[in-house]
């Protein structure tokens, strides 16, 4: 009796530990530093993607409405995954989506938009990646929700269902 007690107790204990770790894995632990919230939109001038015209940042974000700026590139694989969510967000009325085409070739980017549709109201090019630096971006894709010339939310990495819901909640 006693000889079986110890092994079974051990097995049960380890099973419980396993279960707890398993549950723990499902809790999201993605940690985003909070220091970029509620800061002013950086000022910069950029070239437009379609026409090669110069544009000032003040002109882009001039209205008191929600803007959603997305940094994307045709070579970025997660951008493809998030594209459907951008399309979804683009169909909302009270938000304008701005694209920042990051270190990309114009041709490739156009092909990308043709293939996956274009959710952007306006696209600016960032060939050498300096504008993304102004925004403090860590990588591609990355998105910023802007209201009243302030960044109110920053999303590192591709959009997903949860972040889309959250944005929709904010803009309503």
């Amino acid at each position: 009796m006693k000889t079986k007690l110890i092994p079974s107790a051990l097995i049960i204990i380890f099973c419980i530990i396993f279960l707890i770790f398993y549950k723990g894995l499902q809790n999201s632990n993605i940690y985003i530093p909070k220091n970029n919230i509620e800061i002013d939109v950086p000022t910069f001038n950029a070239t437009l993607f379609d026409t090669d015209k110069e544009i000032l940042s003040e002109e882009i974000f001039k209205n008191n409405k929600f803007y959603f700026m997305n940094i994307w590139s045709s070579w970025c694989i997660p951008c493809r995954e998030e594209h459907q969510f951008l399309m979804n967000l683009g169909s909302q009325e009270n938000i304008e989506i701005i694209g920042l085409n990051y270190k990309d070739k114009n041709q490739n980017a156009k092909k990308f938009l043709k293939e996956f549709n274009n959710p952007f109201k306006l696209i600016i090019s960032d060939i050498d990646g300096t504008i993304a630096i102004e925004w403090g971006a860590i990588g591609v894709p990355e998105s910023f929700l802007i209201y009243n010339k302030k960044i109110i939310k920053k999303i590192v990495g591709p959009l997903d269902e949860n972040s889309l819901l959250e944005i929709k909640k904010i803009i309503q």
Partner: protein
Amino acid sequence: MASLIGFYSLVFGLFFSFLIILFSIKNLRNTNVFNNNLISLTFLQFLFVIISFFGLVISFINSDFSNATVFNHSHTTIPLFYKISGTWGNHEGSLLLWLVVLTLFIFLFLLKSKNQTKQYRILTLLFQQIIIIGFFIFIIKTSNPFDYIFPVPNEGLGLNPILQDPALAIHPPILYLGYVGSSIIFSSTLAATSTNYISKEWAKHIKQWILISWIFLTLGILLGSIWAYYELGWGGFWFWDPVENVSLMPWLALTTLFHCILVLEKRLALTSWIVILSISTFTLSMSGTFLVRSGILNSVHTFANDPDRGLFILIFLFCLIFLSLFVFLFFFKAKNENTYNFFWLSKETSILINNWFMMYFLTVVLVGTVYPIFLEVITSEKISVGPPFYNKLIIPFLVPFLFAMAIGPKLKWIKSDLKNKFNLLFFLIISFFISALIVKKFNVNFLVNTILMTSVFYLFFSTLRDFFISKLKNLAQNVAHFGFSLLILSILLNNIFSSEIIANLKVGDTYETEKFKISFENIKQKKEQNFEVIIGKFNIEFLNGDVETLRPELRIYNQPNIVTSEADIKTNLLKDSFITMNLVQNQNYFNIRYQIKPFMIWIWLSVLLISFGGLKSLFKKKYEN
């Protein structure tokens, strides 16, 4: 191209695992001699893994951004040295490094174990192959370092600047040699248990493997700690960060295991301790990998969070745990040993005392590390466990531990009595007076610090005395124990006497305290290969007229765009002067942090001494036998 070769050699390596298992089982059943082809097969497997690893290194050197790992962790402007070290600075590459070490160690093991029985060698090989297969599948399935991206990006995302550092470039390989080295101990213990081979001869043979992983683990932890000290800019060297803890836990288990092996070698006792400790050392290393790589914990070492990876390691880890439990419960036969007939005053008893203390420390660290996870799952409350928890639970127990460590090694095996009672008492009194004087002079909490310091000085003096009395006998042990006393002593003094000021200064400003005056002379800008640097110049004038010039840096990396602050540290035997500066946003002043940290260098030196003790012990065997 290199990526392609890399990937296929990886698959070949896995294929060899199955081949080795097939041949081993055949060999196990049919003949009585060890089939030497198995060594060749193991070597070939190692070769394929190494080719695969170099495939990745070459992709990094060539900045081949069609490889996803290279794309995510490299950039064309990074210096060559960091391109190479970037190979293991990420999840995929570091796992490949694990595999390199795993296959290397089993190959060396087979070469070095020619005098052992066939059964034992083959079983060790089998158990090791189970681990190796697990890692192969893990890499190929969830973290393939050779994933292909199309269209090929022009530029990579860059290597995190805080990883661009020489200490951190060699820290992972050395730490892994320690971590993964414990896999050999694990496999061979399981093999020895199932063939009932746990004996004095086995202890002699496995001792060197324990020492090797122990030395590397110690050095690996030291390097990580030095890096954290000068790179993270907090001026501390140990933060009880979960990742530091997961490297400390195997170290504690391994240290205990080593002491147990000494008892086994001499007296054929403590066998169940040894089996359990061998198993737990490796499972603790594996759990460390799980905790770090799954993203279940938050820490400075965040790797990409991917639940699939976490789940895979978790299942694999528990398979190993259940496998070892099975072997332990069904095959382990306690030798008719005299574990509990130890005489109270003997070396074995003192080692047993050491074991219990070590197990206590291990438990504290373990609980502190995983308790937040348990709490979050059960009550969804988030907490973080910090230094006060560890300090409160560990420091009081350090006192008896240090006393035991001072007296224990002087005892003889089997039965002993205290000689030189006069000396022991004399040292105690001296240590007490020295500590009381130091503590009194500097006006810190008297009782706690005096008691703690007395115990440290006691160990310090008694090991120091042993150098003169026993000369070269037991030198390895003496060096290691002396190093340990020096370590605790320097940490203690460092804690008590550290001072720090934080101030916001403009160029030209001065900041005065009672003891020194800091003046901010100027700043200079410079451009380096992949970052721009702002160098501040600070003069520190001390009351006694000494002047020190320190030049901390701010580095602005372009890829990714991160600002890091590089401390400038002036080290001498008595103290470190440590200064960092930080940008304050939209202001024209800098945030300056100046610290005086006494005896820092002794902390590093004492850990080196400890590992040197281990090294000495590794080579001692040669001429003694």
